[in-house]
C-alpha cells in the first residue's frame, strides 16, 4: 500500500490493519523513515526505539495474520512523552538529572498500550520535568512547532507529543497535564489533546510534577483517536493511590450520536474583562460556538469564580509539590537542572505550610462548586489559549507566572477537558477551544469534539512539511 500513511487517523489505519490491507511492518517502516526525514527539523524525539518498534511490528503482523487481532490500536505507531517510564528504555524527563535513568517497569498506561498492541516508536521531548522551559544548556534542542518549524513554540510541557502527532511522525502519543500540558501544546500544534478526569488514567510510572494535579492522557489527530487511546489506558490501578475504582464506558460507542439537545455552558468571563485574547482567537471561538448551536446544542453563558482564584490555588499547590518531589536533587545536583527551571523550582521550597493547606482547602470548595454548577450542563466550553503559538524563546524568564492560563482551572477541580482545533489565524497557525466535562464523563466531551470535527474542515489541513 502506498500514499501518505502517516496522515491517516488511528481509526482509519486500524480498519486497514484489521482487514489485512496494511501490514504493521510496512506501516512502522513508513513512520521510521518519516521520523528520519522530518524530525531533524522539529526535534520532537529524544530517542527513536527503531529495533524495538520493528520487533513489536513483527509480533503484531504475526498475530493479525493468525486472526489474533487485539483491537483498534493493534499495529498503530505511537510515541510517549519522556516523562513516562518505559521498561529497559531510558526515561529522562528531558533532564540531565535523569540522563542515565532506565526504568525496570513500564508505567501502567504504557503497559496497557502495549497490551492493546500499539507499536512504540520512541520517547518524545518535553519541558524539563514538565515544568521548565527551553534553555540552551539542556541535553536536547527545544522541540519545534511543525506549523512554524523555524520559530514556533509548541507550548508546554508535552511538546514532543504534540509536535510529533501534528507532523505525522506518530499516530498518537501520551502526554501529561498538570496545568495545561496536554491541552496547550495540542492547541498550539492543532491536534486533539484530552486531559482525563483525575484518577481515570493511572499515574503509576509517570514521573511526578504535582501528585494532586497530574493527569496522563492521549494526544492524537482527532477526538475519535483520543477516544480509542483512552479506551486502552483508562481504568483502576491499585498502584496509583489517586486511581478511581469506577467502570470504564465504551468511549467510541456514542461518538456518532450527535449533540442535539445537549446543554453547554459557555465561559467567557475568564478572559473577557482583564485578559483579552487575540481577536482572531476570539472570533474562531465564537464561530465554533455557532457551529455547536447548528449541531443542535443549547448554549448558555455560565459564570464561575474568577480565573485568578483557580490559578492561585494551582500555583501554590503545584510549586510546593514540585519542590517536594525534587528537594533532594535540587540540593545535591542543582547544576544538572536547566537554567530556566532552577529559578522556577527553588521558590516552591519557600512556600509556607499554612499557605499550601489553605490552597488545598480552597481547592475543595472550588471543586465542589464546579460539580454543583455542572448539574445544569452536559459540558462547558471556553478558550484553550489566548492566541496561536508564540515564537520560541530560550530567554523568557518568568512569563509563565505572569498571566493565569485558561487550562489549570480544571486541574484544580479535576474535571476532564479536551482541546480541539477551532480554525487558523491569518498566518496559518492553529487556534483551539477547550471543552470540559463532568467528572468521569469523558464520553460526552469526546462526542461533542467529534461532532464538531466532523462538521468543520479543520482536520483536513496538515502542516506543510515535505
Amino acid at each position, binding site marked *: 500500500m502506498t500514499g501518505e500513511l502517516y496522515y491517516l487517523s488511528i481509526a482509519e489505519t486500524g480498519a486497514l490493519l484489521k482487514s489485512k490491507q496494511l501490514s504493521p511492518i510496512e506501516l512502522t517502516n513508513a513512520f521510521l523513515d518519516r521520523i528520519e526525514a522530518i524530525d531533524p527539523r522539529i526535534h520532537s524525539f529524544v530517542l527513536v526505539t527503531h529495533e524495538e518498534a520493528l520487533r513489536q511490528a513483527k509480533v503484531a503482523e504475526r498475530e493479525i495474520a493468525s486472526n489474533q487481532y487485539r483491537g483498534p490500536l493493534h499495529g498503530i505507531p505511537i510515541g510517549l512523552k519522556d516523562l513516562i517510564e518505559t521498561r529497559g528504555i531510558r526515561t529522562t524527563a528531558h533532564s540531565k538529572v535523569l540522563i542515565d535513568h532506565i526504568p525496570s517497569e513500564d508505567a501502567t498506561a504504557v503497559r496497557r498500550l502495549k497490551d492493546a498492541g500499539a507499536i512504540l516508536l520512541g520517547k518524545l521531548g518535553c519541558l524539563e520535568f514538565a515544568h521548565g522551559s527551553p534553555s540552551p544548556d539542556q541535553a536536547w534542542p527545544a522541540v519545534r512547532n511543525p506549523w512554524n518549524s523555524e520559530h514556533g513554540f509548541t507550548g508546554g510541557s508535552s511538546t514532543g507529543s504534540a509536535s510529533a502527532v501534528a507532523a505525522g511522525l506518530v499516530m498518537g502519543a501520551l502526554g501529561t497535564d498538570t496545568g495545561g500540558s496536554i491541552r496547550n501544546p495540542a492547541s498550539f500544534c492543532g491536534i486533539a489533546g484530552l486531559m482525563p478526569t483525575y484518577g481515570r488514567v493511572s499515574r503509576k510510572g509517570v514521573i511526578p510534577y504535582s501528585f*494532586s494535579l497530574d493527569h496522563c492522557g492521549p494526544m492524537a489527530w482527532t477526538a475519535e483517536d483520543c477516544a480509542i487511546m483512552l479506551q486502552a489506558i483508562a481504568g483502576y490501578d491499585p498502584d496509583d*493511590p489517586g486511581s478511581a475504582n469506577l467502570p470504564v464506558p465504551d468511549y467510541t460507542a456514542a461518538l456518532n450520536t450527535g449533540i442535539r439537545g445537549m446543554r453547554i455552558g459557555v465561559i467567557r468571563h475568564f478572559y473577557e474583562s*482583564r*485578559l483579552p485574547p487575540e481577536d482572531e482567537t476570539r472570533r474562531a471561538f465564537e464561530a465554533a460556538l455557532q457551529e455547536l448551536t447548528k449541531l443542535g446544542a443549547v448554549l448558555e453563558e455560565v459564570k464561575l469564580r474568577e480565573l*485568578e*482564584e483557580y*490559578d*492561585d*490555588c494551582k*500555583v*501554590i499547590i503545584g*510549586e510546593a509539590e514540585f519542590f517536594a518531589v525534587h528537594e533532594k536533587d*535540587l*540540593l545535591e545536583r*542543582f547544576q544538572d537542572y536547566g*537554567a530556566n527551571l*532552577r*529559578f*522556577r523550582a*527553588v*521558590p*516552591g*521550597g*519557600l*512556600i*509556607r505550610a499554612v*499557605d499550601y*493547606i*489553605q*490552597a*488545598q*482547602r*480552597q*481547592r*475543595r*470548595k472550588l*471543586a465542589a462548586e464546579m460539580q454543583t454548577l455542572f448539574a445544569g450542563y452536559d459540558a462547558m466550553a471556553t478558550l484553550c489559549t489566548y492566541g496561536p503559538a508564540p515564537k520560541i524563546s530560550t530567554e523568557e*524568564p*518568568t512569563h509563565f*507566572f*505572569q*498571566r*493565569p492560563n485558561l487550562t489549570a482551572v480544571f486541574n484544580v477541580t479535576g474535571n476532564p477537558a479536551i482541546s480541539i482545533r477551532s480554525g487558523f489565524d491569518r498566518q496559518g497557525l492553529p487556534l483551539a477551544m477547550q471543552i470540559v466535562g463532568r467528572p468521569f464523563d469523558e464520553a460526552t466531551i469526546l462526542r461533542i469534539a467529534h461532532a464538531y470535527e466532523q462538521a468543520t474542515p479543520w482536520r483536513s489541513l496538515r502542516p506543510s512539511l515535505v
Partner: protein
Amino acid sequence: MADDTRQPSEQEVTLMLKRAGITLPPDQLERCCAVIARLEAAAHRLRKDLKRTDEPASVFLIER
C-alpha cells in the same frame, strides 16, 4: 492580574535560600525573586473566609 505583588529584596531571598542550602548566581536570583513575588501574591489572595471546619482537598479515605 491584579498587581498586588510585593517584590522581596534580594537580601531576603538570599537569606531564605541559604536556609534551604541553595546559592543562585545573580541573574537567576533576580528571576527567582520575581517568581517568589508571584507566589507571595497568590498566597496573599487565597481566601481568608474559610470556616474552621473546611477540609483540605488532600483528605483521604482509608480502605479496608
